[in-house]
């Protein structure tokens, strides 16, 4: 069955450092991969989308890589700030057919220490 794995334990990072989150998947050939941020008691908020033929995407302090051979995506936050503390969700999507409903990982809880 399809499986998405994200760091199950909370990730503690010192303010100013780069936070790197990992998303691994099996039994899936996604057409694209997305990262969302979710704060407690709120719905996820879209951050970045990267397609299967793209290696890297950047947006301000965020960078995403996508390696379809390793079946892995890395999500980087540079110059991290306490306000970046949240749960970050990886989501896979397929092209064509279905509802384009995303398959989500459980998320990684990121804590940026001042």
């Amino acid at each position, binding site marked *: 069955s399809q499986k998405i794995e994200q760091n199950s334990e909370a990730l503690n990072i010192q303010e100013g450092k780069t936070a790197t989150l990992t998303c691994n998947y099996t039994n899936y050939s996604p057409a694209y991969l997305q990262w969302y941020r979710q704060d407690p*008691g709120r719905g996820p908020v879209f951050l970045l989308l990267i397609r299967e033929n793209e290696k890297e995407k950047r947006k301000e302090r965020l960078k995403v890589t996508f390696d379809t051979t390793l079946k892995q995506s890395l999500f980087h936050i540079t110059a991290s700030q306490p306000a970046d503390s949240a749960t970050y969700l990886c989501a896979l999507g397929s092209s064509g057919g279905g509802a*384009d409903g995303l398959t989500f990982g459980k998320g990684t809880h990121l804590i940026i220490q001042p």
Partner: protein
Amino acid sequence: EADIYQTPRYLVIGTGKKITLECSQTMGHDKMYWYQQDPGMELHLIHYSYGVNSTEKGDLSSESTVSRIRTEHFPLTLESARPSHTSQYLCASSGGRNIQYFGAGTRLSVL
């Protein structure tokens, strides 16, 4: 900020009651979704819609039902709530770029 709204935000209700969770979006999106999320767990798709009069069941079996009579409105109904329905319910919509915009969610507790 996404223009998608869910009401109520919190609902505590007794077993056997009928409930409807409301979801509205003002972005004109054709695709809408309902996800269920338990604390610390992943989101599971329970219903989706491609547009008006289109509804489909998602990957996770659910006793709830949905309707899509208007583009902007996608309510979810539980005919007879049970404690096993206690969860957070998230509504989302999507335009042409496969990006989903989520509401703030409804946290349901069935006693």
